[in-house]
């Protein structure tokens, strides 16, 4: 009795979240895939074909023959889309690199602080992440606008003669991204550095290794898992970023997240928006799987 009841509740523990995610995370992707193969229509919902279950087998057959890869042909033939994908990947790659350059020294410094100070400092690094993403981007609009504090400061110190246009530029996008994603880079690196065994560095020193060399030969290689986790945690969402380029960037060149948004909200072209999403997802699926594997491995190691 007790055994069977246990397995019943145990099963429920798994089934509840599993069912929720299957219904609201997995199933939607299949629908996106289906709609990306549909045609735009002046109807509600604004796409064709729609599965007609009443028509039975014939209805299903009609449904499948009506699907077409036209939206994907459009994505390939129109340089607007290709350009946006390329632009998003480039911006994500560069800003991940910048985040690494800015984030590693910060994580390293945190790990070397006296033990009792570390929790406070880590909370200080995380705290801005708890405030709204939108607010943090908006804060930079305050600073970067034409009459903003950055231009005022630069003018006051006579570094520039007339105000520069910071907003609506790629510089502003990079500033916004580095600012918003910094904690995501710092925390995973800090987590690996903090666990790093200090005696390894002592051993290197005893064997005559200079501190600088020991840093590159011992510290950096051992922190690679943290660096990889931080890089993925930043790179993947940045590729699809919408808010930052929309508020801080210019309107001549769009990132792919903006293209998807415009196709959906302005052009009301749901099938093309879906095709954009499917291609974006297929670009990101490899990094996502790598990230998932790293999470699972960490789970097994800690067990």
């Amino acid at each position, binding site marked *: 009795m007790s055994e069977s009841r246990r397995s019943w509740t145990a099963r429920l523990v798994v089934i509840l*979240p599993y069912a929720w995610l299957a219904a609201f995370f997995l199933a939607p992707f299949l*629908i996106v895939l289906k*709609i990306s193969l549909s045609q735009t229509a002046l109807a509600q919902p604004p796409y064709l074909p729609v599965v007609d279950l009443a028509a039975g087998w014939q209805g299903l057959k009609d449904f499948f023959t009506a699907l077409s890869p036209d939206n994907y042909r459009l994505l390939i033939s129109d340089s607007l889309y290709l350009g946006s994908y390329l632009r998003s990947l480039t911006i994500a790659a560069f800003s991940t690199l910048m985040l690494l350059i800015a984030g590693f020294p910060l994580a390293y410094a945190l790990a070397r602080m006296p033990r009792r100070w570390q929790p406070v400092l880590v909370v200080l690094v995380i705290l801005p992440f708890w405030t*709204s993403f939108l607010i943090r981007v908006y804060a930079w609009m305050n600073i970067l606008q034409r009459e903003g504090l950055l231009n005022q400061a630069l003018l006051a110190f006579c570094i520039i003669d007339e105000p520069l246009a910071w907003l609506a530029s790629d510089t502003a996008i990079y500033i916004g991204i580095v600012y918003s994603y910094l904690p995501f880079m710092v925390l995973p690196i800090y987590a690996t550095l903090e666990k790093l065994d200090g005696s390894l560095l002592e051993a290197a020193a005893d064997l005559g290794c200079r501190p600088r060399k020991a840093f590159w030969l011992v510290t950096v290689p051992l922190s690679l898992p943290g660096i990889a986790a931080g890089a993925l945690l930043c790179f993947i969402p940045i590729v699809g970023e919408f808010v930052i380029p929309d*508020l801080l960037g210019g309107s001549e060149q769009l990132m792919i997240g903006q293209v998807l948004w415009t196709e959906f909200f302005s052009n009301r072209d749901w099938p093309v928006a*879906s095709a954009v999403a499917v291609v974006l997802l297929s670009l990101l699926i490899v990094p996502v799987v790598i990230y*998932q594997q790293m999470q699972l491995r960490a789970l097994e190691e800690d067990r």
Partner: protein
Amino acid sequence: MRKGPSWFNIASIGLGLAFLYLPIAILVIYSFNASRLVTVWAGWSTRWYAELLQDQAMLEAAWTSLRVALLSATVATVLGTLAALSLVRMGRFRGRLLFSAMIYAPLILPEVITGLSLLLLFVAAAIDRGFWTIVIAHTTLTMGFVTVVVQARLLGFDRSIEEAAMDLGAPPVKTFFAVTLPMIAPAVAAGWMLAFTLSLDDLVIASFTTGPGATTLPIRIYSEVRLGVKPEINAICTIMIAVVAVTVVAASLLSKLREAKMAMPVPGAG
């Protein structure tokens, strides 16, 4: 990693924290600016806060956001904790790989993808969009974060206490509520708070899944912000920052107190 910090380390931390906090500080200070021109300082004033109280649409949006966040964070915490239990305690069940993929993917997938796919599901299922669809969407988005937080705590504690309770004849459900839950409670609370703030924060997914009559605060703020910087927006942002800061600090103080109390009767535990 021992050895003290060098000057370079201290400078890194100083610069890093300045970079993180200066923009927010400027935003807060300028919310008290008397001038409508956001760039000209004209003395201290609270007039934008007074005007905010007149802004019915903004207050309504804030109320909607609060209700969405309370509901979705609570459901996400229950589901996310169950998911953490499944991943850590249930061993290798069938479909575990797919399960973990569905848990971790929403954490990093661009929000435009998640938002669009959820919307298309609601349309396909002919569900009227509005308050409840945002709640469902935010629950799906945030439960993975709860799982990650709770899972870390579950991995960290001594399993033998649970086993002892079971050996003494406590049924699994009772063991969970009497032993496991109290031990993971700080992580569950932290997960709830994370889910709550993420829901309050979200613009993209809410924009996709909302319908007539359900405008959340970020959607409202975004529609204003697109037109440029405004002192009223600085004021509402300052209020949100203050709420979050007070909550986080209070929560960490509470957990410190709790830990101190829990540590006393059982020396050496944990």
